[in-house]
């Protein structure tokens, strides 16, 4: 009982982070597009598409975690997102690119590289734990 309560708290924390990040970005997609375009890595059109789509994906996946609807699908999407952002941040750093992942939109553009890494890793660990718990629960019910 306590264990499942703790897992639910973790669900809510992760969901809140992604919903918050998504809402921040969804409020100003024009600025987000310019932030993405800033370093000329993606074509403008792709940047526009991402700016309109990504925030809502984060919001819906966060809500899915809270309401336990399409839970495993949401976990997998969020895990994929964090893996991509982590890989992109590390890859960019290795190549000497001065880039922040923009996870929290324009608000996070002054965050340092260690801050980004710490947050992304923390979220990834939490997501991995939730995935493990979900798989274990499914096996127990099977």
């Amino acid at each position: 009982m306590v264990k499942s309560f703790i897992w639910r708290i973790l669900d809510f924390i992760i969901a809140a982070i992604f919903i918050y990040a998504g809402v921040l970005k969804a409020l100003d997609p024009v600025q987000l597009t310019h932030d993405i375009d800033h370093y000329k890595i993606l074509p403008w059109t792709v940047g526009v598409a991402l700016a309109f789509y990504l925030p809502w994906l984060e919001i819906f996946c966060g809500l899915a975690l809270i309401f336990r609807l399409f839970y495993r699908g949401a976990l997998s999407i969020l895990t994929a997102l964090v893996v991509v952002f982590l890989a992109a941040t590390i890859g960019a750093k290795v190549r000497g690119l001065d880039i922040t992942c923009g996870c929290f939109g324009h608000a996070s553009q002054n965050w340092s590289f260690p801050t980004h890494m710490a947050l992304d890793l923390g979220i990834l660990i939490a997501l991995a734990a939730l995935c493990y718990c979900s798989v274990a629960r499914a096996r127990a019910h099977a």
Partner: protein
Amino acid sequence: MKFSLARQALILAALSLLPGVGQAIYFRDKISWQSPIPPSEMVSVDRAREWGDGVIWIDARPDDEFAHDHVPGAVSLNEDRWNELLPQFLAAWSPGKKVIVYCSAQSCDLAREVAERLRKEAQLPDVFVLEGGWEAWVKKNR
């Protein structure tokens, strides 16, 4: 009804498209899918032609390109010699005139930068960037 992981993720991804598309429609005047310049600040060659004499053309390209060829009656204004060239342009401007800035092609940023500067610093209304730039003008007029 239980869905597989892949199906859950697909449904979430598809659901996220809806508000994304809605936002894209809502912001359609503030952001262009083709270029960083919003549609409200862009004008096509055909539209510019309709405005007739009520237009002042600004060539934002470097001096040598302007000297080689330009829109008849265009004024040269670039950021290399902004302080020197701006008064000449202002001498030709009067309230009610529409200003159309162009540079070499759609991909060129110079026209956008000159137009932004005219709007912000000189606070001129009705400043537009020519869609397709000099290339587009030549195609339609020669």
